[in-house]
């Protein structure tokens, strides 16, 4: 099963922040000026890996405007962005890591972003429908388990 993400930028960036925080990253920059500074710093003498989030589409009402968000941890910077067609991608840069390590870090965070997007969408929709989440836990394998109840007329 391959999850598909179709999200507006605010929902997508919220999922990025939630996923990054859960994995110990800090938001480095989200504005254009801050991002340029952060990206330049991260690229100095660093290796660089580019990944795509498969089956994703970040929709926006501001076509042509570049939107990015950057997070860091232990000298590794991961920048999420959308291209002109709306495909979400991430760029992983960092010193002292192999390409394989950078790719693994990028894929780990990429999966966590998709998971957080699904979680936030489910929670919002279920609350809107009057469902009650009575149990919630995150397993050792990082899957999220929810028990939800609903009384029907």
């Amino acid at each position, binding site marked *: 099963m391959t999850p598909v993400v179709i999200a507006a930028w605010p929902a997508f960036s919220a999922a990025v922040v939630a996923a990054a925080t859960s994995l110990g990253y800090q938001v480095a920059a989200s504005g254009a000026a801050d991002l340029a500074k952060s990206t330049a710093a991260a690229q100095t003498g660093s290796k660089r890996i580019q990944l795509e989030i498969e089956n994703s589409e970040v929709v926006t009402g501001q076509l042509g405007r570049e939107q990015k968000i950057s997070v860091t941890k232990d000298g590794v910077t991961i920048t999420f962005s959308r291209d002109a067609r709306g495909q979400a991608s991430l760029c992983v840069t960092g010193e002292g890591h192999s390409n394989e390590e950078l790719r693994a870090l990028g894929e780990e965070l990429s999966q966590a972003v998709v*998971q957080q997007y699904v979680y936030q969408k489910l929670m919002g929709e279920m609350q809107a429908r009057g469902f009650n989440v009575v149990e919630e836990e995150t397993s050792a394998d990082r899957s999220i388990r929810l028990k*939800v109840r609903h*009384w029907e007329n």
Partner: protein
Amino acid sequence: MPQREFDITIGKDGSVELHVKGYKGKGCLEAMKMFQQIVGELKEEQRTNEYYEPEEQVRFNIDQRH
């Protein structure tokens, strides 16, 4: 007023597994459609033994679409 219960597992890759409890007959299929609207495309369905009992339990795997 019947109580419906849903066990939902969101895998670390965002895939969703849904376990529906508390429905009789084809009522669980309506619940499945509702979750399809929220989450996405149904990829796999497993009917447990309880499905054939008066109080049914059905397991669905749903793919994120929206």
